[in-house]
């Protein structure tokens, strides 16, 4: 019977005249219990499989399990589907599916006029409305006038569709998400097959649930067909993507995989030491699940123990990695000084979140930059990198390990709450070849000096156990030659200089900074770092399409800054720095290169929208001479 329906569906498939879209932004929203994220995941999958480009972002509620129907219990998922490369999840949803009043309430502010709002009237009873904090029914008091509203009895129809599959009423209700998914898939002309296949796997051992969810999926899809005139039908073409095998990946996954691949290419064991904190904990959880790859994970008693254990692991000849978020990074400050003083490799990942203090743990921000670069006692330089996109996290995690291991320095890698959870298609890299940057530990006894430096100012890495090289290291100042404790004034000056030069030397080995778009001499340059890459890229692209003379410079190396950055920046008439903080990158650029950079701050816990950046660009170029 199911098959028959599908059959009909397939049959009806060709029929509707679908409006061709270049892109669409869909947001699913409901109670934590409504299975929003699952539906989102499946929508992503079938969109990807149909050849579109996309980016997604799940928006979890701050509370673990807030009471049903409350605004703070709302869970959302947004996807941007396009027939061209996209770099953001989309400024505002074209379509919102709101499973209950709370979901509508929470998302209303984000809706552009004319957006399509799909509601389940069955959930708009008095109690739900009150819970959501609606004085009156928004469907009646004109609240929804600016939008196109589609009221569909999703709950009721799901119940009907799942009747006879043998599931309980509660279980039937839980199928709503797949009913809605079916409808969306029909609306945007995406294939159901992969979802069906996923359901088969997921509920292999629960035939009733399988049948019920499958029925809901098909029913939703069918509903689209049969109510064609009511439900708009669109289609989106394939995007031009480089050939290869693809999957979707979010920032956390990419970081975890990058660390593993980086360690392998350095020929080092990965010892990952961390203390749980939102949003960084996700990385620990992924790596803890990959012990079969030889990953050692250690959940310490606090952040200080975590970084100290990582330092110990590096001292012992593995690559010690620790990850945290703002408050945890603050706690690691003293130990980072020890890593700098002892000149040991170390990778520190900071998944930035909104501060100060506990702030808004689940919201994104870029406000740890100056802490990363300058926030330590003493003159204590280390390397700071920032990932630009979810998949870039893979590349930079590898890079962090390479730099740490080959320059004997701590490397701080900045991610943020947005990158951590945002997902995008990722072309699988070639793996498993011979190590690309293998580490050679020092073993020569002749003339061994623990702090003797090579041409790049790098001291030898000696693994305990190496015969004849037993030596002592310390956080006290050490003699430039012997490494013994030294209070000699000239020696301290020399060592301070050497630590500085060693870190600066990292920049020498790196390619020069280029422009992502536009080039030197542009009237305006947007300079960014980290997750602002997406919106800045799309905004600059749009502005340039409108003929505006604007360039894009995106920094992945924050310290040391690229060799040629000063020269490059000095060619621009004007420099605008969009950053999710009060102007920290701006301060860094001004201090280092004395350029009149101007900050464009956004500290709402949310990414920039392309639109607000385009407006900012236009404003600058109009009032510019």
């Amino acid at each position, binding site marked *: 019977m199911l098959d028959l329906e599908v059959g009909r569906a397939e049959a009806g498939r060709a029929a509707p005249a679908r409006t061709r879209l270049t892109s669409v932004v869909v947001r699913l929203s409901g109670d934590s219990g409504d299975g929003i994220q699952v539906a989102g995941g499946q929508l992503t999958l079938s969109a990807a*499989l149909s050849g579109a480009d996309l980016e997604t972002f799940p928006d979890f509620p701050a509370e673990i399990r807030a009471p049903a129907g409350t605004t703070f219990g709302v869970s959302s998922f947004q996807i941007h589907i396009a027939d061209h490369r996209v770099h953001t999840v989309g400024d505002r949803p074209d379509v919102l599916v709101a499973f209950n009043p709370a979901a509508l309430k929470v998302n209303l502010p984000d809706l552009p006029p004319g957006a399509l709002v799909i509601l389940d009237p069955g959930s708009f009873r008095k109690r739900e409305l009150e819970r959501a904090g609606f004085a009156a029914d928004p469907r009646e008091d004109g609240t929804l006038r600016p939008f196109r509203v589609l009221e569909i009895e999703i709950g009721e129809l799901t119940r009907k569709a799942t009747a006879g599959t043998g599931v309980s009423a509660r279980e039937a209700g839980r199928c709503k998400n797949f009913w809605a998914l079916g409808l969306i898939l029909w609306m945007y002309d995406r294939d159901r097959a992969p979802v069906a296949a996923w359901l088969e796997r997921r509920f292999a051992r629960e035939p009733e649930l399988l049948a019920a969810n499958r029925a809901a999926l098909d029913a939703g899809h069918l509903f689209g067909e049969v109510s064609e005139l009511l439900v708009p039908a669109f289609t989106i073409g394939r995007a031009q993507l480089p050939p290869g*095998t*693809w999957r*979707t990946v979010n920032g956390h996954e990419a970081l975890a995989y990058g660390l593993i691949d980086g360690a392998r290419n350095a020929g080092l064991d990965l010892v990952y030491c961390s203390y749980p904190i939102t949003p960084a904990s996700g990385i620990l959880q992924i790596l803890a699940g990959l012990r079969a790859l030889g990953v050692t994970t*250690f959940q310490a*008693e606090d952040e200080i123990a975590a970084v*100290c254990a*990582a330092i110990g692991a590096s001292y012992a000849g593995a690559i010690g990695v620790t990850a945290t978020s703002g408050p945890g990074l603050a706690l690691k400050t003293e130990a980072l000084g020890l890593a700098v003083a002892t000149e040991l490799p170390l990778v520190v990942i900071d998944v930035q979140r909104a501060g100060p203090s506990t702030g808004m743990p689940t919201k994104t921000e870029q406000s740890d930059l100056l802490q990363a670069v300058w926030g330590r006692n003493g003159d204590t330089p280390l390397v700071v990198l920032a990932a630009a996109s979810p998949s870039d996290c893979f590349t930079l995690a590898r890079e962090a390990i390479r730099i740490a291991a080959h320059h004997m320095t701590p490397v701080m890698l900045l991610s943020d709450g947005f990158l951590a959870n945002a997902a995008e298609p990722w072309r699988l890299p070639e793996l*498993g070849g011979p190590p690309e940057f293998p580490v050679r530990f020092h073993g020569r006894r002749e003339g061994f000096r623990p702090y003797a430096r090579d041409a790049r100012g790098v001291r030898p890495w000696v693994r305990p156990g190496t015969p004849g090289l037993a030596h002592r*290291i310390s956080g006290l100042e050490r003699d430039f030659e012997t490494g013994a404790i030294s209070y000699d004034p000239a020696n301290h000056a020399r060592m301070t200089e050497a630590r500085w030069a060693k870190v600066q030397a990292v920049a020498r080995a790196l390619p020069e900074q280029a422009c992502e778009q536009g080039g030197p001499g542009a009237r305006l340059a947007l300079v960014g770092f980290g997750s602002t890459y997406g919106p800045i890229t799309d905004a600059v692209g749009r502005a340039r399409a409108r003929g505006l003379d604007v360039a894009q410079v995106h920094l992945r190396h924050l310290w040391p800054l690229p060799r040629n950055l000063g020269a490059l920046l000095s060619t621009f008439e004007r420099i605008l720095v969009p950053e999710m903080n009060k102007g920290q990158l701006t301060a860094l650029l001004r201090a280092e290169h004395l350029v009149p950079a101007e900050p464009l701050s956004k500290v709402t816990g949310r990414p920039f929208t392309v639109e607000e950046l385009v407006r900012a660009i236009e404003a600058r170029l109009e009032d510019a001479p």
Partner: protein
Amino acid sequence: MSAQAPVLQSPAPERPALQPAARQPKDYASDQEVRWCPGCGDYAILKAVERALAELRADPDRTVFVSGIGCAARFPHYLATYGFHGIHGRAPAIATGIKLARPDLDVWVVGGDGDMLAIGTGHLVHALRRDVDMVILILNNAIYGLTKGQASPTTPVGTRTASTPLGVVERPLNACEVALAAGARFVARGIDVQQKVLPELLVRAHAHPGAALVEILQNCVIYADGAFADVTDKAVEAEAQVQLRHGEPLLLAHGRKGLRPARDRLGLELVEIGPGGWREAGVAVHDERDRAAAMLLAALQPPMPVAVGVLFADPAAASYERAVRAQIEEARAREPGLDLDRVLRRARTWTVAG
């Protein structure tokens, strides 16, 4: 060969770990000039450690001393082994990382009472509960020596120090009690000047498969001279200490007194040994495997005799880092030859044609 193969094989020793050559205690001394105050108890402890290392035929190249900051924490500089003089209070955490990466290394942690029981409390407790296989020495001098004489968590109530000119108000911590409560499975107490006993304790501690804690009463001649005089003075030691030996009665005062289970309550009481001998007097026999007994012994403070020796040695000991390695090996066995590439492809993938 799995792409991951190199990983976790690296700790392979650079040379066959054959029984290393015998060494003299002095062979474990580094070339660094020892800079403790003349008369400091740390000198005696350093000597005892060198003796223990010699007795253990420890290989200096596979031995690592880790410390925090303090006079006691200067230890690594004075030994010809690998050494990591870290930051205040964090030595157990650094050492844990070393063991996680290199279970093959022999790790010793040395710190003072401030290092280990003030700023380092949390790390000490958790290293012990995890049972990371290392020896932890707390050089307890009941003072902050290096910072010139402020009160420490073990300074007795009423003591006037640089930071407590009117006397300490808070009650001191008992390192052995804290260790036992943390779940430590080897706990011992020694005294700097007992050059016969101390090296033995260190050898025992080293033999223990998990985390082994040894509290050493150490005299700071400058800022807390005689802090433990009521326990360690030759004049009183016979009465003020009970030397623990597994399977032997808890006797002191040259056998004239002993400790027995209290009659009226749960605990130990002091008894004079009558003509009938210690058995008749009901003196308890020390069972170092009995944690409950260890807790009662650890708690003893003057005027009761202070317990010296091995308070607790749990035969059921294990080591954290080996358990972690075991999990990794099991996981490997379950998914032989798994590599990152396969992990990446666990997710639903799709192909874009060229």
